């Protein structure tokens, strides 16, 4: 899930002081010896052990910001009456992670199961805070997901979360505005650049698209599509930061051209101004993940029927490659006292058909699992907002085109994204020198990584 932009802003001083105090309370208690990290040698649990764990009265805590996930939790409690799950929403995105870190450092109050986005799995794995689920699962789930999704949750011989939703990138566009401007849906980025210029000429008050300077998630998704693999983490002390590769430069220089010529707008996204711009036709298209179509329906309801979905423009004619932006897993924390029950909760709500289907139908999460991605019912659904198009089918096809080779993350993505906003993102918003911004981003990341004791490659 993409975290929604409106976060509760706590009274800062009090909050940060008390949080500092909490953080400070950790002292010596480093990661316990009972955590199942490192994988490999641990034997898988037996059916008897599983039965026993699931029929013993147990209390679990579950943190997530998926709306109405209580429904799935209720279904789980019905299936396992002895397990009592306390569901808590501690905030969305950044706030959720702050609370998790604080609780982990404090050594108490951390949940058993927590929602963690793919790009943050590495940062929680770094402290040994995530449980390797492999020994606690009685079935091999690897075949249930597209390869690229599986590679996002598995690393170093361990499984660090159960996929909940994904965000393969596609394109949403306004059919009416495209028609008014007399342009075709571009299939390559070259055509897209030409279309941006033509569109701007025909519709001076509007832009073909918006490139926000505050959304590293989207930008990284576009890097993913272009074949760049800027980040990696070996699970120990070595990180890879490679932001001057030809693939990265290709993307950055491409947008530099559009931005410098005022062919795309550079408004920050997910704020009030941007919602209104979407609803008022300031942007004729949006390069967005699979969670975008439903999100847009809620944001720009007055434009129903005018939108359509397609694949991303491609770098080479005839290609069909996408990237990913967002999506979550449910991970189990290594501090849990009930690893079997906690793992089962994470698995059950995301893998069993009834709760997993509910995520798709009621919470509109884009499904990660092949069983739903390939189900007739899901694919055939026609969306009125998109002029009766089978949008699910479009994005299910796109999901197959996300490259299957590993796209890695740094174990400090929240810093990396924040540094993006200060460097490359600022250059975008100021219509400045994007390549210089990119270099500044890389320099900041390297400096931070080294100051934190990592070896940088």
């Amino acid at each position, binding site marked *: 899930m993409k975290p929604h*932009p409106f976060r509760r*802003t706590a009274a*800062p*001083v009090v909050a*940060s*002081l*008390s*949080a*500092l*105090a909490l*953080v*400070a309370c950790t002292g010596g208690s480093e990661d316990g010896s009972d955590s199942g990290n490192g994988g490999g040698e641990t034997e898988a649990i037996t059916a008897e052990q599983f039965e026993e764990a699931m029929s013993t009265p147990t209390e679990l805590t579950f943190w997530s910001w998926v709306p109405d996930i209580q429904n799935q939790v209720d279904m789980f409690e019905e299936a396992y009456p002895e397990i009592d799950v306390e569901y808590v929403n501690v905030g969305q995105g*950044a706030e959720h992670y*702050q609370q998790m*870190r604080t609780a982990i450092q404090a050594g108490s109050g951390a949940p058993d199961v927590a929602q963690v986005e793919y790009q943050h799995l590495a940062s929680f794995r*770094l*402290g040994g805070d995530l449980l390797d689920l492999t020994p606690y699962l009685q079935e091999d789930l690897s075949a249930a997901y597209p390869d690229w999704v599986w590679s996002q949750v598995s690393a170093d011989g361990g499984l660090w979360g159960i996929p909940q939703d994904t965000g393969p990138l596609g394109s949403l566009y306004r059919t009416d505005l495209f028609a008014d401007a007399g342009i075709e849906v571009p299939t390559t980025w070259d055509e897209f650049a030409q279309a941006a210029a033509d569109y701007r000429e025909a519709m001076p008050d509007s832009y073909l698209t918006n490139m926000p*300077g*505050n959304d590293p998630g989207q930008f990284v998704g576009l890097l993913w599509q272009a074949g760049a693999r800027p980040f990696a983490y070996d699970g120990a*002390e070595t990180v890879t930061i490679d932001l001057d590769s030809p693939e990265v430069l290709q993307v950055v220089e491409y947008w530099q051209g559009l931005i410098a010529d005022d062919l795309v707008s550079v*408004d*920050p996204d*997910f*704020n*009030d*101004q941007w919602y*209104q*711009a979407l609803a*008022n036709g*300031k942007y004729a298209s949006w390069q967005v993940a699979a969670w975008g179509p439903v999100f847009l329906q809620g944001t720009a309801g007055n434009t129903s029927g005018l939108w359509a979905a397609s694949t991303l423009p491609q770098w080479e004619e005839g290609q069909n490659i996408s990237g990913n932006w967002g999506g979550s897993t449910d991970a189990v924390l290594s501090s849990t006292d009930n690893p079997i029950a906690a793992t089962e909760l994470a698995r059950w709500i995301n893998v069993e058909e009834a709760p997993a289907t509910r995520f798709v139908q009621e919470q509109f999460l884009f499904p990660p699992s092949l069983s739903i991605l390939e189900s007739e019912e899901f694919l055939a659904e026609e969306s009125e907002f998109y002029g009766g198009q089978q949008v699910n089918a479009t994005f299910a096809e796109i999901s197959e085109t996300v490259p299957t080779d590993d796209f890695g993350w740094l*174990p*400090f993505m*929240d*810093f990396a994204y*924040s540094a993006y*906003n*200060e460097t490359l*993102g*600022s250059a*975008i*918003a*100021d219509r400045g020198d994007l390549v210089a911004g990119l270099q500044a981003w890389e320099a900041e990341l390297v400096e*931070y990584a080294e*100051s*934190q*004791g*990592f070896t940088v490659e």
Partner: protein
Amino acid sequence: MTSTAPPAPAQPPPQRTANTLSTLRRREARAGYLFVLPFMIVFVAMLIVPLGYSGYLSVFREQLIGGTSFVGLENYARALSDATFTGGVARMALFLVIQVPIMLGLALLFALVLDSGRLRLQKFVRLAIFIPYAVPGVISALMWGYLYGPDFGPFAQLGEASGLGSPDFLSADFMLFSIMNIVTWGFIGYNMIIMYSALRSIPTEIYEAARVDGAGEVRIATAIKIPALRPALVLTTIFSVIGTFQLFNEPNILRTIAPNVIGNGYTPNLYAYNLAFVGQEVNYAAAIAFLLGFVIMVVSYIFQLSTSRKEATR
């Protein structure tokens, strides 16, 4: 923050009553301690302990790889040469010297006008001035953020419609003033109420005497009211100094609409917060927070010193 400890018994009292008096004193002392106890508990738990703790934290350095090590004052040295931190402090100092005089000046004016009793609908006006303060800071920042909006904000649309164009309130050049406007709007009423209640406590006989001597309203205001307001002015100024350096909500909210203008370290408080929770540099954030507290203390002290000097020379 002054803690009031009861005075220690001074000279030993005369022999005859020594016993009864000392038991009485002791009992009084005990009662005194009992009265300040609730305050002391909260004060220690909520202020002294966290303060000590962040002081303790600030002399360590915890790395994501390599664990925690004692570094002494290294974090402080780093902060003093950290352009983001010093820049944030300088920005807040600029904010202070521009915004606080405007805000307190307007608050004083309103208080004097209200107190003169020559206003119609006095209660209504008083309430109207105070109401912005009742709006939570986060809400008012969101509201002003909408008003400032470059495409769909009412100011921009008005400017557009009249053909004048409108300034970009959220640009790097205007942002600080836009925030000043929000803070001023929000806090005039609060300061006005403090000054107004101070004015109400001046005995009316003084005014009568002044009028008998032939003084007009303006003369009364400058010769009697404003000097009598000195303690209230000092109080509101100190509060404003503290509030300014701790600025957080407004920039943090406006950040969502102008992320390129408001960076991680736009204000020192925002910087400490981002260091701790985004960069996971808790120790350095603690040092920043401590230094910020020190800056506030120094500025407040200098201000108090200068006002008491003035008072002494009068």
